[in-house]
């Protein structure tokens, strides 16, 4: 097979169009979103401190006004870009190996790494539900604007809802477990001494966020938290 001359191709520096550029956008938006996820969880854990604390926290956030909207816009944009990149990259992946293997063995890749493309959309769907459920209330039968604590308790009393929350958050933990390490690699940060450490940090991050988020519906279901 003759190798033809390859000059004249469009070998230009188009960051957005390149696979590495797309991964960088994934990494940066992922970084923002995982920061949010952590902050969000810490804020919400105030549910264990009682209704006053949590409702005050909710009121405080609402009082931020413009700043809150700015944060929301950044987050929404991040989610949008993160998903867009994911979709584009998945299309590329499907194109890159049109004929699948009859038999394929995965050796070292984690379940988390291989299932990003499933954990991602499920978490995405959960996000929409979560907003409708606790932020805007359309998906909450007993929604009381302003009474965050009551909304949490009445919402999680429904076992189906709680179960969905727990499953989605376990998937989110997996997603973070791979994603938080992966974003460093995508941004070009790797070193034999620090990479194993980063992986452990990512693992811990996933577990902490997962446990924290699962703790809330669990506490409501088991009656530890009630009105």
């Amino acid at each position, binding site marked *: *097979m003759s*190798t033809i001359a*390859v*000059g004249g*191709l*469009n*070998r*230009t*520096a*188009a*960051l957005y*169009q*390149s*696979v*590495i*550029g*797309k*991964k*960088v956008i994934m990494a940066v938006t992922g970084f923002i979103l995982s920061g949010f996820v952590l902050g969000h969880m810490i804020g919400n854990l105030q549910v264990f401190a009682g209704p006053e604390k949590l409702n005050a926290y909710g009121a405080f956030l609402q009082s931020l006004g413009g700043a809150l909207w700015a944060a929301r816009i950044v987050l929404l944009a991040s989610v949008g870009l993160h998903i867009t990149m994911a979709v584009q*990259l998945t299309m*590329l*992946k499907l*194109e*890159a*190996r*049109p*004929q*699948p*293997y*009859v*038999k*394929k*063995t*995965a*050796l*070292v*890749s*984690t379940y988390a*790494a*291989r299932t*990003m493309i499933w954990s991602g959309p499920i978490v995405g769907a959960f996000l929409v539900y979560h907003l409708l459920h606790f932020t805007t209330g359309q998906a909450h039968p007993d929604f009381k604007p302003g009474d965050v604590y009551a909304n949490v308790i009445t919402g999680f009393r429904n076992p189906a809802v709680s179960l969905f929350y727990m499953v989605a958050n376990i998937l989110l933990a997996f997603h973070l477990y*791979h994603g938080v*390490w*992966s974003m*460093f*690699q*995508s*941004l*070009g*940060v*790797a*070193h*034999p001494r620090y*990479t194993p450490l980063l992986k452990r940090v990512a693992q811990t991050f996933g577990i902490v966020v997962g446990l924290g988020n699962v703790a809330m519906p669990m506490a409501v279901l088991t009656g530890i938290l009630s009105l």
Partner: protein
Amino acid sequence: MKLTLNIWRQKGPNDAGRIVKYEMPNVDEHMSFLEMLDVLNEDLIHKGEEPVTFEHDCREGICGCCGFMINGLPHGPQRGTTVCQLHMRQFHDGEELWLEPFRAKAFPVLKDLMVDRSAFDRIIAAGGYVSVNTGCAVDGNAIPIEKQSAEMAMDAAACIGCGACVASCPNASASLFTSAKIAHLGLLPQGQAERDRRAVRMVAQLMEEGFGYCTNTGECEALCPKGVKLENIARMNRDYLKAAILYREENASAGGA
């Protein structure tokens, strides 16, 4: 020992392939895997059937010709080994094996277990070199090179271009291959002048060839017969990012390639 082989047979690039089953009643454990296939092929020729086509040349693990999937793993179950170096003592009596070509859009199957990997050559042609014409070199010791940099460059340069990284990658990405060359040359003083251009052009070619992208799963590193490290991909990402942000396009009047 006795083995059952399920081998992907495909007449040509445009034919549909299928798995065909062969029984190997008498396999010696000291044979190499390719010698085992030689025995099968001699048998097939005597029976008037077409032998199984597989790529091979040096049979000592360095030319990078050989490589196919054995039970879903490129080059088979032994780590750090090409299929020509793999010996039958790695298998046990009665085992059933599945042999398939490396699969990727950028690696079209030519026949049976043989694929076209010329995409790799085109990636190197895009920038995997130091532009130094014969005759214009300075003395070999004129530029000292830190031993560790030389060793790391060598680690990356050990890539044999077999394609196992692409084959093992869930996304059929050629990031490990491309990054190994970017890292090899980027770690040496001689490679600095073209570092940005190299990253930009090689990554562009990588996409042009239709390889997938890297999701940092680490399969490539684990399956690379020469132990090329995932760290190289981070290095490529770093070089590319810097280059993509700061690189100035070559314009025709200034003279291109």
